Every structure is written in C-alpha cells, then in structure tokens.
C-alpha cells in the first residue's frame, strides 16, 4: 500500500522542514542582530539578566560567565561551603569576596542560606556568592533568584559555557516586545537553556513549580541556535538511541520494499531528505572546534 509509505515519508519530511526553516531564519536574524552596538552598551529599557548558577565550582566556568560585556548583568553562584570548602575558599580569595547583609523579601520560600558575599574588586562587582546548604537544584536556583536584582533569570548548571553574544541575543529577543511581554526565551540547541521572567518564577512558587509551563504560549520565544554549550561528549545512551532509531527506519524501508516499490522509493528519498536536513542543521549550528571556550570568553567561538 503506497499510502503508508506516503504518510510516513510526508511526516518525516514535514518534521525535518519544520525544524530547518526556523533555524535558517534564526541564522539570518542573528547575522542582523550581531553587530547591534546599542544593545551592548545601553541595556535598553533596563532589561537586566541575572545568571543563577547551581553546582558551578569550576573557576574557569565562572570566568566565562563573568566575561559578558552587557551592562545590566550579574552572576549569582550558589555553593555549599561545608561540602566544598576548598573550592569555596578559592573563589573567596580569587575574587576578594566580602560578606554582605541580606534580608529575604519573602517572594520565594528560601532556606539554608548561610551567607552572601560580593567582591571588593569593582570589576567583579557583578558576582554574588551565596553560601547555602546544598539540597536540590531547584532550591539553589530559588535561593539565587531571591538574591537576584534583575527581571530576567537564567539558570545555569555545571559544564555550561556561554557563547559570545549569547546574552546580547537574549536581550534583543526580550526587547523586541513591550516591557514584560516576553516571559520565557529558550534555546533548544547546544546545552539547552531557558531565560525566564522573574515574575513567572515567583508566580510558580520557584523552580520546583516548573515555571516554564505556567508561561502562556504567546509570551514564549525560541531562539533556534545554540547560545550555550557543554564540553562533555553526548552520552552512550543517546548514541545508542539514535542508532536504534536508524535501525528501525532501515527496517521500515525494507518492509516497505517487500510490500510495495513506490513506498520504498518514497521512504528512501524521505530518509535522504532528513539526512541532508540534519547535516545542514549541524552545519548551520556548528561551533568551530579549533578554539575551545576560553576563560575570557572573547573570540573563543565564531557565531
């Protein structure tokens, strides 16, 4: 029956095209927005971003997060000094952190904060160090959100590296609409990330309440390109899943070939189309591997 082959191949092609079109559009949009100087120096409309770090102990990663040139930006690192005393002490001494006063505002239920520190060095004023008894990632993010000063929150876990221009791109997306209209911006590629409006997080009662699900669809945006990456390689499980999927597809084509030649042709061509689309997507989202993300973050990658 050719109808089965037609429906299957149509679904495959439609899915690949639906993914490819926004990526191509995003590429053009990124090329348009990349040289916007006004964004980098003005913090338009007072759009500020607080990066909330959980489990980030690597000094190199913190330097990468601090290397952003955008004005209204801060990094809040939540660490457990009791569990990681050496790493905590290293950060305190590297950035010359001093203990500062902090009173909870009651917006989020936060427990376990022992102390809060800021740097004495002016150039690291945007770094906030929260000493908190570690429990869950959501708890750490809530603690960081309670301390955050800006209206947009970006949770970051260990081994996530910001690509140059990522924050400016997020600001451009948030600034496209009137104040407060955009409440969630996600990037599904590289290391998936999601910027959320502070109000959305508070309305959901914190990160444990899955705030991304409470945001209305018309207030969500997607950036179809990687803004953050991981250094670690994909897991074996993921590779095995992809191999299994390909085997299943091959079995389907063989089955279709046994029953109907036209179905086999349609499925084979659809597979070629999907493979080409996947290669094209990889090529568009490719990050040059010759230069690894450096501590300064500048010039490490070509976007």
């Amino acid at each position: 029956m050719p109808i089965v082959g037609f429906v299957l191949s149509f679904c495959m092609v439609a899915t690949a095209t639906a993914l490819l079109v926004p990526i191509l559009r995003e590429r053009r949009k990124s090329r348009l927005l990349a040289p916007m100087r006004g964004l980098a120096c003005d913090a338009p409309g007072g759009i500020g971003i607080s990066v909330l770090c959980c489990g980030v102990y690597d000094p190199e990663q913190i330097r990468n997060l601090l290397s952003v040139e955008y004005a209204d930006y801060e990094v809040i690192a939540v660490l457990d000094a009791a569990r990681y005393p050496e790493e905590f002490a290293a950060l305190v001494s590297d950035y010359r952190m001093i203990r500062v006063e902090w009173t909870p505002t009651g917006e989020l239920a936060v427990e376990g904060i022992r102390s809060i520190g800021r740097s004495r060095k002016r150039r690291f004023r945007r770094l906030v160090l929260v000493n908190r008894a570690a429990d869950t990632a959501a708890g750490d993010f809530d603690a960081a959100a309670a301390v955050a000063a800006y209206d947009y929150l970006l949770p970051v876990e260990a081994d996530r590296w910001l690509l140059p221009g990522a924050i400016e791109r997020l600001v451009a997306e948030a600034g496209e609409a009137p104040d407060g209209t955009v409440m969630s911006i996600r990037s599904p590629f590289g290391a998936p990330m999601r910027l959320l409006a502070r109000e959305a997080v508070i309305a959901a009662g914190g990160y444990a309440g899955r705030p991304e699900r409470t945001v209305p669809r018309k207030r969500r945006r997607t950036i179809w390109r990687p803004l953050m990456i991981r250094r670690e390689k994909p897991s074996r499980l993921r590779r095995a899943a992809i191999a299994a999927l390909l085997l299943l597809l091959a079995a389907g084509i063989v089955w279709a070939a046994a029953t109907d030649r036209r179905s086999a042709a349609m499925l084979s061509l659809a597979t070629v189309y999907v493979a080409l689309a996947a290669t094209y997507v990889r090529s568009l989202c490719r990050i040059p591997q010759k230069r690894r993300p450096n501590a300064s973050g500048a010039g490490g990658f070509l976007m």
Partner: protein
Amino acid sequence: MTATLPMLWIATLIAGSLLLAGGLAAERLRQRRRGRDAVLRAKYLHILTVALLSERRTPPRFPLLDRPGARAILVETLVETIRATYGPDDELVRRIVAEYGLDRWLLQRIRRSGGYRRARYLAQLAHLPVAPEIAFRVAGHISSRNRYVRFYALLARITADPAEALHAIASYPTPFTATETAEILSVLRRGMLPIAYVPLLESPVENLRRLGVAIVRQFGIEEAEMQLLRIVDTDPSPELAFEALDTLRAMQLPLCRREIAGRIARLDPSLRKTLLRRMAAGGYAPHVLQRLFGAHERPYYEALVQSYKCTLACR
C-alpha cells in the same frame, strides 16, 4: 490519480533533496571561505585605518574587490569601523562609498532579498554616509510586514536625510521597542542626528516622546525634570510613563512628588516591584519609598533596602 500522486510526491522529494544538497554545498563553501574572508577583512581594515589616519582626501584602493563576497566584506568593514569609532572622517568614507558604488550595490541587494537579510542590508546602509536621495529609495520598505525591515528602513531614511528625521519618526507606524530606541541612540551618539530633547518630549507623537526620554536618560539631562514629570503624570502610554519614571530614578532625582505618587498608584504590581528593586539598588532611602508605596509593600521594600544591595550602593 492513485499512480500520479506518489510520482508527484517522489519528484517533490527529489527536488527538495537537491535543494538541500545545494544549500549544504553553499554552506560548506562559505565555511571554507571563512579563513580567506578573515584575511581580506583584516587587509581592508588596515587600508581603511591608514587612510583615515593619514587624512588623505582620495579614496584608497581596495584589492581583490571583484572576488565573490569581497564587496560585502568591504561594506561590513566600513560599517564596523563607523560603528566602533567616534568622529571618523565622514567625507573620506562618503567618497569610498561613492567610488566603489557601495550604496548602489546595497540598494540592489535590498531590492533582491527579503526578510532579515533585507533588514541587514538596510542596517548597513543606515550606517554608511550616503546621499539624501537614498532616503526616498528606501522609504517604501517602511511599510514592510517584517518589523526589522520597517525599522532599518526608517533608520536608513533618517540617517540619509537627518533634516527630515523628526518627520520620518513621527510618521513611523509602530511604537519603538527598547532595542530599537537603543539603536537610534547609538546613531545619535555618533552625531548623525540632532539632540534637541525639548521638542521631542513635548511632541504629541509617542515615538518622539519615547526617543526624547531615552536621550534625557542617555545624557543625564537633569534640566528635563519638569517635562519628565509631565509625562509621568499625564502620558496615555503606561510604558512610556514608566520609562520616564525610571529615567528620573536613574538620574537620582527626588521622587517624592504628587505626579510620581499618582503614577505609581496606577502601575501594574509587577512594574511596581521592578521599580522598587531599582530604587533600592539605586540607594533611595526608606522614607522616600514609604511615601510612594503602600503599607502592604513595606516589608518588601524594607527587606530590599536592608539587603546587601543597599549596603553596597550606599557605601
């Protein structure tokens, strides 16, 4: 019919695959050319910098300009240099643009492309010193469906013919977003537009008032306090009123005023919290906040003021 449909579908699949293969090949070629482009870009930048510093009046010679993509690299180099510097010799850049026909080349590209690509060419045109006639040639794109095309067509129009800038902004159909205002300001800072903030703040057009508020904030013009207070009090746009209020806050001006209290009472709760956070971070004293905000918000702002942010801000 049953035989035709699968054949048509197969033909479509073949065409689609060929199209993708073509796109992929072009992308690979582009990536391979990246190294060569970087060398050419560095060379063009060097030639341009030497020409600008030597104060010569004749346009320099840019080699390999007939190569594919070289003209685009030259345009990008010029735009980047203009964007990143203050006070370069406008006349020399104007002559380079005229000598190599870069404005005509960009107009041709604008005509042939669409969407974000068209917007990018318009943005490049907006940053090059071109003849005022260009303003008329891009005016048609101001009614485009793509927001970026609309905006960069406007920017190209006002930078090509600054004398008509206010009229062009007044007739722009969409309210400016924060990023668009920032982009206009970046042009304004380079002296391509006049900075007469009073007529802007008193204009009946929202976009002009928005631009006026942004100018006041950007240059910290404290003399505009009365105009800002009027916008805070009576402006029909709540976003603009909030922007004016935030500008007063950013300039650290006294906020205990009847107009401000009235506007704050009408603000959305989330915006009130945003303003409170910014005021606390800016070092405003609790008694100011007490006068402006209700008793139910007192624990919130007291916590903010007592927090580390204020400790640091007031140091």
